[in-house]
């Protein structure tokens, strides 16, 4: 057991943190629901961060740390699937990578060069042409959303490969959710620390302090379960991490908006960037019900 980062992991976390700091500030003009980080994507690509899971000294834990860190930024890029799912398949998969689950619109689908097609129990890979996808402009999820409108050729995976892809989508979802939840909490803490009502900061009222603390406990749990799932490569660990991530996010989304009050309804306040991304992840792989079935299969088999 070792719960600290090794030297390589600490080094990559530090380097990524420095890079991320350049993208911490949200532009002052209103940008709507989506804030895509084209320059961030370029910077990550240039430094080959999307491939760190394949480097033995870094591995999947470093990739999970990176996804979690990047998800805390106001700018979003397609990182989770590229960093955590892509390395699990022995096929060349150009990024961005996106998921089309049972024909629904998905994040980054309109620009994806690789699609993970999920139809019920079947999982396949497609490389669509640009005209086979379209942007969903009317979405309220804070990711660039797109839908598949064409019928690209799909290479269906074996059951074993499909299981592996689903497992690592769960890890990716949990890692991204951990970052989103943390950012939403941080943003709300800042608000509660400065906003005064009844003559004192809102954050000094116990009713709010306790709710915030409970959410902080939840995100810590999501983080540890994610790191463990990334480290062990165990399907049960992945299912637990994704379940806890989706379950915790459901609560955090509501609580953070409630505590941010009307301020949180404005696009000027960045909270929606994280909470409306969480909402997009809540339904992934069947949502809590889907993860629970996986937990039952992998963790209660012997019960």
């Amino acid at each position, binding site marked *: *057991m*070792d*719960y*600290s*980062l*090794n030297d390589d*992991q600490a080094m990559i976390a530090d380097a990524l943190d420095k890079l991320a700091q350049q993208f911490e500030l949200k532009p002052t003009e209103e940008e709507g629901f989506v804030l895509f980080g084209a320059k961030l994507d370029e910077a990550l690509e240039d430094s080959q961060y999307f491939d760190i899971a394949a480097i033995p000294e870094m591995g999947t*834990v470093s990739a999970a740390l990176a996804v979690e860190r990047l998800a805390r930024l106001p700018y979003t890029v397609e990182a989770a699937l590229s960093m955590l799912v892509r390395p699990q398949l022995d096929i060349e998969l150009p990024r961005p990578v996106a998921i089309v689950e049972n024909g629904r619109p998905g994040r980054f689908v309109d620009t994806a060069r690789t699609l993970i097609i999920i139809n019920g129990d079947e999982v396949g890979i497609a490389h669509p042409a640009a005209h086979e996808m379209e942007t969903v402009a009317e979405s309220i999820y804070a990711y660039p959303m797109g839908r598949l409108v064409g019928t690209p050729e799909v290479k269906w995976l074996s059951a074993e490969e499909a299981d592996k892809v689903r497992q690592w989508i769960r890890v990716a979802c949990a890692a991204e959710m951990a970052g989103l939840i943390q950012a939403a*909490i941080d943003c709300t*803490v800042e608000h*509660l*620390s400065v906003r005064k009502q009844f003559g*004192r*900061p809102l*954050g*000094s*009222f*116990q009713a709010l*302090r*306790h709710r*915030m*603390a*409970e959410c*902080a*406990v939840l995100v*810590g*749990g*999501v983080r*540890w*379960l994610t*790191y*463990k799932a990334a*480290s*062990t490569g165990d399907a049960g660990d992945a*299912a*637990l991490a994704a*379940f*806890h991530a989706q*379950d915790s996010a459901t609560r955090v989304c509501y609580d953070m908006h409630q505590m941010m009050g009307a301020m949180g309804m404005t696009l000027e306040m960045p909270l929606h960037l994280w909470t409306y991304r969480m909402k997009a992840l809540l339904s992934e792989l069947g949502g*809590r*019900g889907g*993860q*629970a*079935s996986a*937990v*039952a299969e992998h*963790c*209660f088999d*012997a*019960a």
Partner: protein
Amino acid sequence: MDFNWTQEQQEFRSTVRTFLEATLPNNWEALAHGPGSETQTNFSKQFCSALSEAGLLVPHWPEHWGGRDADPWTAFILAEEMWAAGEPRGGQYMNVNWIGPTLMRFGTDAQQERYIPPMARGETLWCQGFSEPESGSDLASLRTRADRDGDRYLINGQKIWTSYAGMADTCFLLARTAPGKGGISIFLLPMDTPGITVRQIPSIIGEGDIHEVFFDNVEVPASARLGEEGQAWEIVRISLSLERVGIPRFALASRMLHRAVGILKKEGRFCGAAIEQAAKAHAACEASRLYSYSIIDQRCRDIQAGPEASAARFATVNAERSVGEFVVEHVPDALAGGDPLLMAHHQRAIVAGIASGAAEIQLNLIATELLELPREPR
């Protein structure tokens, strides 16, 4: 980061399990009822003596005091296995976790010689004289007085909710020697000292668990004081940081969850809402486990536990609550005489968010120290 146990740690866990299988009687699951009962306390003394002889009671203590200087992981693996088995050490787990180590750090030579060897042999039970009728979470407001009179103190007052007091040999007592938080002192008080009256409080946890303890002109020598006058707050803060993640409640909660799921599966009822609720409870148990492990990992590196220990404690409360709710909703027969172990667990689990500092106090600490939210005005 590495989430795997070493070969040595796995072997140690296996040794503890083998010991438990060989030592616990066949009717242990029924006996586990009533954590402070006479039956269980007597059993615990025999059990802890055997544990001591096998070198499994205090392996993490220094060699000088009967241990082998094992690391905090060893102590925690031991605690997990004991708690998952229904804690056959009874109240003696407190000696092992924090009373012994506290005496080693702050006790005089005479206090150490008198009290530590019986703990290491598994022969003695302590109780913790902290809470009072008017001082629960607000511990610093306690009123029990220790008035200095030459080379002795006279103790007067009352403690309440005191676990194991009915059968305890010694009390780790907090009493006031001066006003304010800095006016509290610790006394190591034999429970057979004249002037002490113990009254059991019937409780939903089981027989012999909680008590009222009255002190009526109890005379103790000044040599019974642990540390300096007024040093209690400093000592207790350190002791309770060991206690905060001292009980691996998630280990038994997780075992009980699997037991309940096993019952449902056998009856063909593990489906639908039960699956989702079981997943929630399992995730809560595992989150609690990893939180606790992260604190043990810090302990191995001599890092003083910060607010993360409070988060770990609250995660454990979540785990106990989730498992309890699952059992009540899906395996209700178990709590109506159907399964003594599930029943005993359910009775004890209610303590998770109350004993050793209320969960809400932990939330306050997390809000202030981890999130750095503004403090509540007092």
